[in-house]
């Protein structure tokens, strides 16, 4: 089966007007405008197979959304090649766009003053969805997203979470095989975030959709994506499984302990770096390859009530990946 998404040495540069601050700078820029080239994406290459869910991670301004927009055909690449669902997004036209859903977390296509079902009807006409299919798909989306009491209320009266659910329903009525989601859980509370994640997993399960999403919430990544793309300053730093990233970046394991009486911080320091000690709880960082041996020694030498070995939080791993990537690009 051909890949769902191919990005081959993709680059995008913008010309940004620069001026000195203040009135003098503003007047000067009128007569002698100066421009600076910003390289938002540089030589990014990856391939995504049909049915994969891939998370695109990076700090603000890293180039995630720019890449997503090039894949969706919104932005014209400065260099490189893109292929999505077998189409060049720039020349694919309507047949390409029918295979695509683009959801931007901070911009909505719902008509603000009307109930969401009016936007659904509009998309039904735009995507030319037959009546029977429309009814079946709407019923499925309403059930999966729990929208029963929501679709007939004006959008402006909906909560942020309800709006995002309606936004997803609008974007998926034509049942696209490729989903580009930019911060789909941005600003949502924990319950709404969880509902969106469960929906995306179910949609992919039912329809074999390929999903590329950006998010700043690591729970989105851990719950949905087995593979991550890490980008910083326009460069792709990592492409692979989340587990492998943790193993590569994190040289330590975290040992969580519940201790018996009489154990001091000094006792623990001979086993590893003490991250936290608040009796009876303690947390140690130990070298990855020594984690099992150190745990055995701990159990023998100290009165341990409970012990668990974990990887460090994914946020720490990603932060470290960004930092190492930044150092590499500066070097």
């Amino acid at each position, binding site marked *: 089966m051909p890949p769902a998404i191919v990005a081959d040495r993709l680059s995008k540069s913008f010309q940004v007007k620069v001026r000195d601050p203040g009135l003098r700078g503003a007047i000067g820029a009128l007569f002698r405008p100066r421009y600076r080239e910003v390289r938002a994406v540089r030589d990014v290459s990856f391939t995504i197979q049909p049915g994969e869910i891939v998370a695109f991670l990076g700090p603000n301004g890293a180039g995630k959304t720019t890449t997503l927009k090039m894949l969706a055909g919104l932005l014209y690449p400065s260099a490189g090649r893109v292929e999505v669902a077998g189409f060049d997004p720039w020349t694919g036209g*309507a047949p390409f766009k029918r295979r*695509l859903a*683009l959801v*931007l977390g901070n*911009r909505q*296509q719902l008509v603000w003053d*009307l109930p969401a079902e009016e936007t659904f009807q509009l998309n039904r*006409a*735009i995507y*030319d969805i037959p009546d029977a299919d429309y009814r079946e798909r709407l019923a499925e989306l309403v059930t999966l997203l729990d929208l029963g009491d929501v679709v007939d209320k004006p959008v402006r009266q909906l909560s942020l979470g309800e709006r995002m659910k309606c936004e997803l329903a609008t974007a998926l009525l034509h049942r696209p095989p490729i989903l580009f989601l930019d911060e789909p859980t941005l600003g949502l509370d924990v319950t709404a975030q969880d509902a969106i994640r469960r929906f995306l997993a179910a949609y992919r399960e039912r329809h074999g959709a390929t999903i590329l999403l950006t998010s700043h919430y690591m729970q989105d990544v851990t719950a949905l994506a087995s593979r991550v793309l890490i980008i910083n300053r326009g460069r792709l730093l990592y492409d692979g499984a989340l587990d492998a990233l943790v193993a590569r970046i994190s040289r330590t394991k975290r040992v969580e302990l519940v201790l018996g009486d009489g154990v001091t911080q000094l006792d623990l320091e001979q086993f590893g770096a003490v991250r936290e000690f608040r009796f009876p709880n303690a947390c140690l960082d130990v070298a990855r390859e020594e984690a099992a041996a150190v745990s055995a020694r701990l159990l023998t030498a100290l009165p341990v009530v409970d012990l668990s070995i974990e990887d460090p939080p994914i946020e720490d791993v990603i932060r470290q990946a960004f930092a190492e990537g930044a150092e590499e690009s500066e070097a």
Partner: protein
Amino acid sequence: MSGAGAWARRYWALMRNAWLVDFQYRAAIALWLLWGMMEPAIALGIWWGVAGTGDVAGYGRADFARYFFAVMLVNQLTIAWDSWYLDRWIRNGELNFRLARPLNPVHEALADNLAYKARSAGFLIVLWLVVAAVWPPVRLPFDPARWALTAVAVALAAGMRFFISYATGLTAFWTTRATAIMELHAGLSLFLAGRIAPLALLPPAVAGVAGVLWFSSMLAFPVNLLTGAVQSTEALLRGFAGQVVWLAFWFAAYRLAWSRGLRKYGAVGG
């Protein structure tokens, strides 16, 4: 479903949504319509006073009344404000989701225009009929052939004004001053399109500029056709030819700005 059927459904859905949004803003729509009637009403008041019992360059009071009622109707049926929307779509990133749909955003703008014009036409034609019933100067001679020709001229003018506004709005791909350009155009059209005075009353050089450029085609020609000021076959053909040429020009300008602008697009704002 056939291609034509699918397009009809798309346009109907877009127009239906435009009307549904209008229902949410009833007061604003009424004020907008009133504002559209104010300018020709004020101009009529002034020229009514200037003409007195005589005439100005062949225009008596009744001629001015017919002229400005026709301006009111034709202006509302041809006006286009798309540059303001496009400027916002492009600069705030609201164009993004529209570009991801299998429908060129120009169709949404066209449907929005059709919805607005259908609504305005209904209101203004009824208003004219009511006023004509009690005030003879604004009555038009019964001439269905002339009204049919006027409908064609209004359609061409509406198309031209739409593409002028749309193409100008697309300059927001390059500049933050797209709406300022359109404001300048609106200021010029106040004189050159015949909004505040019939072109026959302007100095010949100014009227000549209006005739050479697109301004007379966008308002004065359909207005003069409706009121009967265009009589000769030659003037009729010249008027329609001007409309077709300038419509083609502004359509080409839109196509060029769209294809070039998309490559320039920064897709800002998410």
